[in-house]
């Protein structure tokens, strides 16, 4: 049985002082000693690039890893809409407390107050930092920064750079990272994939990687390891995430003892382009900012085959505006997504496959003029037209929900350390700040908060205790055994000699996950998933076909290992969803809803985080529960009426 007790290490006292007091109470590493510590950062997205650059500026010796051919290609690059910060530049009543409040409430009371408050506090520093780096945020004519409001918020606190906010923020962090590479304080390993986390005496001491160009397996040791490896939406196969996003780094840490928290909290984004056929390889997100000016509707009648323009106003159902007069089209993502599913399931879906709802800009174009709409969303409209062949200035867009973000991830304490000492998780890879639902424009904020302003402080507290300790040499058996196991694994995949491609099995897994662990879940479906996933995994392991060799580029070999990890994760997602006998945020259990069909929480039993401990390959994980206290934001049923 396990000896783990979850200690969140959250400071106490007045919430606005907690982070400051905590920083003061943490041990420091003297500037001259910092260069004696080696830190591995895996992942160079917003979280990883910002952490690696900041740690190197402080003086630590950093090694940064990415499986991409350049740090600039991390999935963060694709974020469109924007980044939140409590600057109150619009004088509309925003404040650190309001951003904190909105995030806790938006997360349906399943995040830690202390963490969220800190996130809101440092949000303002992030914008300052990014502007100083040259991030070309949108500006007003007077030259000051522009803001817009974003799904779920009643204030304008979202900073943006056209429809390419993630790109510009990542380029800022990437450039800061490359400056450190030039200075020699960061050693950068591109096209290098982490395939194992290595522990010695219970502490993280390094990683084992595979060079994706040569196939070489190598060990790297360090005093601490930071996983900044992104989310696991691709467990669904179809998602808005980039094709290569995967859970492997987090999962392999989980198998080594890091607890995995709230895996069932996945976010389905309401505004994506509906799938056009079964060969679809990924889904494309249309930024949520479109909901500011677009109106969502479906025909009132069932199976209405008329083109949108021929359906008179009186026969349209603007269902979000009707059901939620206060928030209208700006209700949070989970609410918008579930409502879209409801109308499509009712048979009121639109488009060739009847798998979408309209997002209509004709009113805005009438009110603001086409040029203003083009200024705000031009590149999104172009993207839509390129994919669908339809012009959204003339006909309404078709949208449907798709998996987009994963709130669950590696359990971390207030210092962002996992249950393995010396192993940290930052950005989407951890479970920390969004509870059961993430608000729009808050992931970029969290990734950069973790990387620029949290981990660089908290890591010192851990390292200070190790002054003078050398890193574990890579000749140590902990490394050589891990390398040997990995080589065996790779050879096993290459010699399965099955008949079907890796993609085939990934697609099949994705169908189970979408159908049973998707937007609405029930006991039957979850139990079915728990039975079906291991059966499919067994077939996958004995019948997958991986051609080619282990040395050199072999994309099937890369994928097969990632998909294998998705299989194990998917099973845990189902178990977690089954255990959580309530609905909250992105986790909607059909059995637990209000009379109006809204998520119904059970705070008495489930105001907590569920963290699962690996027990070996064929034994279900053991559950650990971290209770959550709400001192500042009163537990209320969310209502966006």
């Amino acid at each position, binding site marked *: 049985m396990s000896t783990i007790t979850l200690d969140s290490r959250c400071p106490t006292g007045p919430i606005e002082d907690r982070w400051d007091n905590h920083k003061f109470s943490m041990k420091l590493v003297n500037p001259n000693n910092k260069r004696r510590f080696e830190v591995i950062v895996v992942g160079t997205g917003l979280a990883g690039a*910002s952490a690696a650059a900041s740690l190197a*500026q402080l003086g630590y010796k950093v090694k940064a890893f990415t499986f*991409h*051919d*350049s740090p*600039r*290609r991390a*999935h963060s*690059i*694709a974020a469109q809409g924007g980044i939140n910060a409590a*600057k109150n*530049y619009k004088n509309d009543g925003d404040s650190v407390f309001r951003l904190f409040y909105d995030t806790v409430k938006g997360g349906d009371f399943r995040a830690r107050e202390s963490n969220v408050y800190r996130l809101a506090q440092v949000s303002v*520093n992030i*914008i*300052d*930092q990014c*502007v*100083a*780096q*040259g991030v*070309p*945020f949108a*500006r007003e*004519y007077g*030259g*000051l*920064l522009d803001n817009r409001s974003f799904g779920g918020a009643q204030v304008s606190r979202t900073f943006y*750079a056209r429809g*390419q906010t993630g*790109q510009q923020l990542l*380029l800022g962090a990437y*450039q*800061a990272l*490359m400056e450190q*590479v*030039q200075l020699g304080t960061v050693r950068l390993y591109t096209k290098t994939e982490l395939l194992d986390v290595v522990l010695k005496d219970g502490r993280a001491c390094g990683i084992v990687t595979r060079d994706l*160009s040569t196939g070489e397996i190598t060990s790297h040791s360090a005093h601490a390891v930071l996983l900044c490896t992104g989310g696991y939406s691709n467990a669904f196969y179809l998602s808005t995430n*980039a*094709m*290569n996003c995967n859970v492997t780094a987090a999962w392999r840490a989980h198998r080594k003892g890091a607890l995995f928290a709230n895996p069932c909290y996945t976010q389905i984004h309401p505004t994506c382009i509906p799938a056009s*056929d079964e*060969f679809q*390889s990924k889904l*494309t*997100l249309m930024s949520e900012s479109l909901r500011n000016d677009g109106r969502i509707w479906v025909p009132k009648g069932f199976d209405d085959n008329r083109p949108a323009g021929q359906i008179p106003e009186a026969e349209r159902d603007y269902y979000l505006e009707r059901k939620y007069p206060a928030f209208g089209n700006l209700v949070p993502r989970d609410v918008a997504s579930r409502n879209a599913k409801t109308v499509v399931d009712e048979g009121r879906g639109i488009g060739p496959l009847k798998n979408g709802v309209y997002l209509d800009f004709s009113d805005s174009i009438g009110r603001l003029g086409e040029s203003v709409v083009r200024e705000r969303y031009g590149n999104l409209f*172009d*993207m839509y037209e*390129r994919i669908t*062949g339809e012009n959204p200035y003339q006909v309404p867009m078709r949208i449907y929900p798709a998996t987009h973000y994963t709130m669950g991830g590696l359990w971390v304490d207030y210092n962002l350390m996992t249950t393995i000492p010396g192993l940290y998780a930052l950005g989407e890879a951890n479970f920390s700040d969004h509870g059961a639902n993430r608000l729009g424009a808050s992931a970029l904020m969290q990734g950069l908060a973790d990387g*620029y*302003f949290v981990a660089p402080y908290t890591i010192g507290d851990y390292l200070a205790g190790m002054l003078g300790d050398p890193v574990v040499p890579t000749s140590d058996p902990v490394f050589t055994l891990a390398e040997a196991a990995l080589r065996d694994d790779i050879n096993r995949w290459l010699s399965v000699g099955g008949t*079907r*491609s890796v*993609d085939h099995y990934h697609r099949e897994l994705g169908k189970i996950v979408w159908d049973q662990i998707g937007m609405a879940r029930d006991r039957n479906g979850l139990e079915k998933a728990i039975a079906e996933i291991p059966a499919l995994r067994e077939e996958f392991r004995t019948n997958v*076909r991986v*051609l*080619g060799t282990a040395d*050199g*580029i072999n994309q*099937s070999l890369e994928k097969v290992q990632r998909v294998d990890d998705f299989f194990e994760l998917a099973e845990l997602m189902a178990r977690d969803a089954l255990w959580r006998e309530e609905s909250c945020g992105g986790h909607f259990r059909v059995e637990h809803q209000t009379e109006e069909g809204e998520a119904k929480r059970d705070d008495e039993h489930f105001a907590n985080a569920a963290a699962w401990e690996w027990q070996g390959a064929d034994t279900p994980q053991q559950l650990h529960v971290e209770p959550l206290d709400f001192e500042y934001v009163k537990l209320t049923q969310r209502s966006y009426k």
Partner: protein
Amino acid sequence: MNLTLKVWRQDGPHTGGRFETYQAADIKDEMSFLEMLDIVNERLIEDGREPIAFDSDCREGICGTCGLMVNGQAHGPQKGTATCQLHMRTFRDGDEITIEPWRAAAFPIMKDLIVDRSPLDAIVEAGGYINANTGAAPDANLIPIPKPVADSSMDAAACIGCGACVAACPNSAGQLFTSAKLNHLNLLPQGQAERWKRTEAMVERMEQFFGSCTNHGECQEACPKEISIDFIAYMNRDYIKAKIKNRKLQGQGFP
């Protein structure tokens, strides 16, 4: 539709390559070009043949990972479009399509359609940043930036680092990429302190890897973000100024 593909296959960086011909049958209009290749690959795997190696990630034209020469054009026939955003409705039943990797001395072929574009990172490393250590920044609204300046900087910053400009250029020049990064930073007030040092360092790093620009303009045509060659002119102007200013800086310790 049914297509014939002529695809460049090469086992590794140190081996020779060859074209191989494949049939792509039953391809639908709505498919993307890369989804068409996915299907070809799946069929190859079922036949026990190694799939075609090609790079892609976001598949929405922003990460810059994809990039193929399609019938001799970088990113294919559609203007302002990365390979991953190209859809099959651009092609006709019976078409023969030649698919090759980027061809440039600075981008060695790693396998099939995958090349090594790390020289682009090396250019950024030389100076493509604004030094601003974490925590040292003043309030973001302290420096107003006129909207047209911010917009112009953003136009340049939109570059996705795909390398199509290099692949399209008869000289394999890296000017469009380099000038995009330089203008993103050099146009902004925050970028002024290091402007001249940055310009000299990045241009000279570029010259270590890439050919020289003779104003063909093919880069702008191929660029999926339609980055303007005007930026190259600004870069050249800044480079000449930088040579003088940097020398002065060295000589007198003060500009």
